[in-house]
């Protein structure tokens, strides 16, 4: 089954002259310069949020499961999905880091991660939940870690 958001589809889209000039990939998008937002929505199939919205905090840690990149070929995934899997293959990366390294807005990364999670290709660890009174052992652990830097 071919990917509905493939480059082939993108190529048949009318060139959005209204939004010209097109920005290079490495451009940062700020405010009005964000321009053709449609392209990001097409990357996520129009979805604005992953199924489990609370799972992907900015500092939730994502790790590709063993063999994820081989397994991924059995799923209809976009190049961006594969890029994420490659990034978090060797070490856990936060959602924020994945956004930065893929140069995609976090909202888009969250949707893509939702797909990878549904396909069981990633493990996700939510951040430590700090209650009103954080555990003193954890705070001590942090202080010791900082001192050792």
């Amino acid at each position, binding site marked *: 089954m071919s990917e509905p958001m493939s480059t082939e589809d993108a190529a048949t889209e009318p060139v959005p002259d209204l939004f010209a000039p097109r920005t290079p990939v490495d451009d*940062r*998008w*700020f*405010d009005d310069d*964000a321009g053709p*937002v449609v392209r*990001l929505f097409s990357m996520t199939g129009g979805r604005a949020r992953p*199924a*489990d919205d*609370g*799972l992907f*905090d*900015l*500092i*939730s*840690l994502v*790790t590709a*499961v063993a063999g994820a990149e081989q397994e991924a070929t059995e799923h209809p995934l976009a190049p961006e999905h594969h890029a994420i899997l490659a990034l978090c293959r060797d070490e*856990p990366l*936060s959602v*924020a*880091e994945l*956004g*930065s*390294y893929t140069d995609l*807005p*976090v*909202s*888009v990364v969250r949707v893509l991660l939702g797909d990878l*999670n*549904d396909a*069981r290709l990633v*493990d*996700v*660890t*939510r*951040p*430590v*939940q*700090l*209650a*009103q*009174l*954080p*555990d*003193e*052992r*954890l*705070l*001590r*652990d*942090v*202080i*010791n*870690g*900082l*001192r*050792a*830097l």
Partner: protein
Amino acid sequence: MASAHSETSALTGTDAPTGTEPARQGPWGNAALKILVAGGFGVGKTTLVGAVSEIRPLRTEEQLSELGRPVDDTHGVEAKRTTTVAMDFGRIDLRPGLALYLFGTPGQDRFWFVWDELARGSLGAVVLADTRRLADCFPSVDFFERRGIPFVVAVNCFEGTEVHAPQDVRAALDLDPQVPVLLCDARSREDGKELLIRLVEHAADRVRAARG
């Protein structure tokens, strides 16, 4: 999705109070914490993040529809607009399995809803102040005070500026006596480390005080 593969809580489950259940892997498992770096525009937030981080500061972007968001001040922001908010952040590996993320908060006023998301679950905040523009950090101080988030005020001693005593800054900001006020050079890794240590110690003091 309830299957075990999809999610492992770093500590005790998503909503449970901390410290009552054994951790699953190592003392805290694979865990991430965050500290915010706040303050007025150009006060050195990203400089500080970069000075103490082990990676070069990264930038991530969040696209937000401001419709229906609780925004304190919507001046200059049209309804139903999608806005891109950029956040600079860095990472410190405290030890294997325990990562600390530092987030520079995006510009004040327009982006309070982003602050709310960033502040949720944070360990605390460093409010950077420039004595030439001390009022710039009032909104940050106010934000963390209102939400009961532990913070320290760090006066970034820019070259060529008159050095003010911490007690003067404390008085000018009308801070609680417990809130640490420190002088720093935001470019200095050692100063940055010290700020973070004082912040976490301050957070620990508050926990002890609250427990009696």
